[in-house]
């Protein structure tokens, strides 16, 4: 906890009297204020564009790529996965309110009965199992990764709306926050080193996206073709800085996704997008 507090202090966020036991909503407001001061010209919706928001040329290129995405056929495939009935005749849509439209922004949520977080990917697996199918591996981008492309796009435009209510939820949120701000690995970076303290700066020629907005637009098609979930991206960042990665679907990454999603609350969702 002390480390986290320090991270926020160092970033100039914790002004004055806010205690170490800030509520998630206080954390979110601090983060918003911090980035607002840092990037006075960014509009709220720009945060979903991540690092693209700091480079007009890259954003323009992104827009033209997105107008005719190279991963179009994979989206078609994903749609087919979503619509193809299970052996029992039911579909994914039957497992969600509203046929799965405008629901993804409510995930992750803490399921008090299960005593754990449920990510949207877990809800897809719960649906499979309920209907007599084997769950997909969270690390398998060809199945779980691809399925999320269409499934999440059904929530495009929904405002991220993650809740932290109750002791279990709070503990998971705090663990995710701790993970985000803890230095790890030989190079001693935290996620916050790059995506909080140095957001908007460049590591070599690579611009760094801010924490806020990092959870809104998954999966991404890396290099235009390789589908990657948010947690799969975490793995990449861990590996790039020589920290031991966790597995997609691990408690550690679920907590981290919970924290990052809460920090993206109020931003419009958009799946699936191009990323480098």
């Amino acid at each position: 906890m002390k480390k986290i507090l320090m991270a926020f202090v160092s970033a100039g966020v914790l002004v004055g009297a806010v205690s170490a036991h800030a509520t998630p909503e206080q954390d979110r407001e601090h983060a918003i204020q911090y980035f607002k001061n840092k990037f006075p010209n960014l509009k709220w919706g720009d945060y979903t564009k991540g690092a693209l928001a700091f480079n007009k040329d890259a954003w323009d290129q992104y827009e033209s790529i997105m107008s005719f995405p190279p991963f179009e056929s994979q989206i078609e495939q994903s749609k087919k996965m979503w619509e193809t009935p299970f052996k029992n005749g039911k579909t994914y849509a039957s497992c969600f309110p509203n046929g799965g439209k405008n629901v993804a922004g409510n995930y992750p949520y803490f399921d008090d009965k299960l005593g754990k977080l449920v990510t949207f990917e877990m809800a897809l697996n719960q649906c499979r199992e309920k209907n007599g199918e084997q769950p997909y591996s969270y690390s398998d981008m060809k199945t779980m990764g691809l399925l999320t492309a269409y499934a999440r796009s059904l929530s495009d435009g929904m405002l991220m709306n993650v809740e932290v209510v109750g002791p279990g939820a709070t503990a998971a949120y705090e663990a995710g926050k701790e993970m985000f701000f803890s230095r790890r690995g030989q190079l001693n970076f935290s996620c916050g080193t790059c995506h909080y303290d140095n957001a908007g700066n460049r590591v070599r020629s690579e611009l760094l996206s801010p924490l806020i907005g990092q959870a809104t637009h998954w999966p991404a098609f890396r290099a235009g073709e390789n589908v990657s979930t948010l947690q799969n991206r975490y793995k990449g960042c861990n590996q790039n800085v020589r920290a031991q990665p966790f597995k997609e679907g691990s408690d550690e990454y679920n907590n981290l996704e919970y924290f990052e999603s809460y920090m993206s609350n109020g931003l419009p969702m958009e799946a699936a997008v191009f990323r480098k």
Partner: protein
Amino acid sequence: MRRKQTSLMLAASLASLLSIGSVHFAAAADGAKKDMTGEELAFDKSKGNCLACHAMPNVPGAEAPGNIAPPLVDMKARFPDKAKLRERIWDEMKFNPNTSMPPFGLHKILTEQEIDKVTDFIYGI
């Protein structure tokens, strides 16, 4: 997914986006290198990778630096005592616990000998 009605698939722009190098601090795969100079150690992505964060405006070939950290210039003037400069490279956290700079000595990212070489190089720029 949002689609806009623009007709062009700009393969060229895709290519140019992709060509921007990605950030790797990953360990070197190409095995133990020959004796590297201080400059090589400072540049190498699997070693010092100082350019990830620092520009070196006086060093030709120090291309595409990051801007996380202050440029490394006039080091002799700013650190007359070379040992003090070495200490910063060995563990910058001693001077600023919130720094972004990896503790190259403390975490054995570079060997003592490699730090000596990097210090000599940085001292001269």
